[in-house]
């Protein structure tokens, strides 16, 4: 398993988490409004709990558990999602 970059209580972006880590979304910095709206519609809102579940064998995209279902996003997009690590 990849080495943890962030520990409990740290602030960072979703891209820095490894499989199994849990976090709470603190902000969504998507530059384009359409994509940001899509993230919001899919349940990535401030305060949402997310867990990193699976990573594609090629390292990208990443599958996260949010609001009881699994959502795949590319790493470039995970970088725009700010989180606070809780586990």
């Amino acid at each position, binding site marked *: 398993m990849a080495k943890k970059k962030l520990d409990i209580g740290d602030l960072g972006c979703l891209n820095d988490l490894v499989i199994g880590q849990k976090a709470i979304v603190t902000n*969504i910095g998507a530059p384009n*409004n*359409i*994509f*940001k*709206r*899509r*993230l*919001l*519609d*899919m*349940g990535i*809102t*401030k*305060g*949402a709990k997310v867990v990193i*579940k*699976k*990573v*594609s*064998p*090629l*390292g*990208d*995209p990443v*599958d996260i558990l949010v*609001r*009881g*279902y*699994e*959502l*795949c*996003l*590319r790493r*470039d*997009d995970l970088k725009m999602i700010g989180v606070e690590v809780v586990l």
Partner: protein
Amino acid sequence: MKIALIGNQNSGKSTLFNLLTDSRQKVGNWPGVTIESKRGYIKNTDFELIDLPGVYSLSPYSNEEKISRAEILKNDLDCIINIVDATSIERSLYLTTQLLDLETNVIVVLNMSDMLAKKKLTIDENILEAKLGCPVIKVSALKNIGIDKLIDAISNLKNRSKLKIFDEFLEEKINDVSKFLDGSNKRFASIKALENDFETNHEDIINKYIKEIENKYNMDVVEVFASKRYDFVEEVRDSCVVRENINETVTDKIDKVLLNKYVGIPIFILIMFLVYFLSVGLVGSATVDFVEGLVEWVSGAMGNLLTNLGASDWSNSLVVDGMIAGVGAVLTFIPQLIILFILISLLETSGYMARISFLLDKFFKRFGLSGKSLIPFIVGTGCSVPGVMATRTIEDDNERKMTILLTPFIPCSAKLPVIALFSGFFFRDYAGIVSASVYFLSVITIILTAIILRKFVYKGNSTAYITELPEFRLPSIKYTLRDVYDRVISYIKKAGSIILLSSIFIWVLSSFSFNFTYGVDVEDSMLATIGKGISWLFYPMLGELSWGASVSAIQGIVAKEQVVSSMAIIAGLTDGGSSLIFASDGIFGFFTPASAYAFIVFNLFSAPCLGTIGAMKKEYGSGKHALKAILFQTGLAWILGVLVYWIGRLIWF
């Protein structure tokens, strides 16, 4: 009464639609199976039901979602049935909160409720009903549970209570804005106006409200509404759902293997290899003799019967050498197709399809495509027409246009007879491997073409990839058999219509000369004359001026399997009814492994059949664009065919 079915992608709308209306719409386990709205009537009623493409919200993102939103906002609906996936209620209820902003009646259907126990979930639908202010009914569309209750609820619609889901401050602003608006669905329109998703004549006032909201919550206004909706949903969830923790689901366990860092990609390659190896190699060689014998027997018996009845030579030849030879040649491949269709159906309904997209997104991103383009490709292994239509789920316009052009490059089931015929004869024991190699050649061609197109035609990079990863589901035997049956029947129907007509046409052209005398040598027939005019075009990839192969290749535009049927008719007429297309002294005796492979390649990549061309035209929204794409495909096919022939000659002499 008019009712719409709406819900998230992959929540089982089409399964419920099929059950309610007794129809056979396609179902599958990936987000975006339904791309067009379908209509039907609920059994034994006059309720019209519309099945809409799945959406996550009423702010549409891709093309097929726009259809759903437009249909909902047309405002001629008596009722909306909102399908909620009971196993992921939180995200599903987000859409419900938006639907409840409308003035239409809503019935919430908790689908897949049979799965709740397995997931250690319990949902109290009475509390949910009270919280949402509309009827809530637990059903399982797959297991046919709760359908009577649903029909009851539709028949006894009551006006629902108006729901306020936001805090007082927001509700007040929504109310204020609605005073400036006319027409129906004022609450919905006010929120959309505040979200800048709806134009009004009162921009100044609306902008003032937006400022106030953004200042109060310290977020942009779109984010405020989304967050507050989810806050409401969380509160509802907490009041009616009890969830026991499960550490690892079955899906997680399967994914540990299928998405494994080291074996995930090799497993994918093995699965795709097996699809072609099993259908063409293993099953093909086991059944081909039996089926060919059957066709030969029918044609012999028919010939005798007609002779005994005193039929003239030409009518005997029309039936035996034209109709039976042409249609029979196509029908001999049904065993292979059955296996191919079963395997594709399993890929589509198990949930593996969405995983292929997840596995290979990074790889295809490099070439300006994304994991989403893979779904049209896999659907295209059955038939290019639904494959081309499946491109609608791709949001990026350039990527979508590229995928429309590339999808026909995947060997579809109609190209399988061409591949199987040539590889079966020229590569015998290696037929399965050769067929699989054709598949991998098509993948390589797709990648190289994508690079060229991104560089010169559809410039720019692929946009974001955001999609749901569905859980694995055990494919239902009933649905798999039905899907395979439907596909085989449609193949047989095509053989009995388009292929039969073309066979008669080809028989006429090859039995008569230009001054309409019957019984001329085939070499002097109209078909041969036409073929000789164009055979130079195919010389560089066949190494022979063959009018027969040339006219057959061109007929691929009617239907790809017509190539095989044309060759069977021509071979039969020239060799006095021999059933062996590649008899060494016959008209196609010149084929070598190199020219055979080259011929397969040309047929694979050249202009697709008319059905697919129609779909391409529709998806491009422009006949000119489709024409350019087809010319490009055919030019590329010619170049590749020639290359394969000359490289092949180095290998096989």
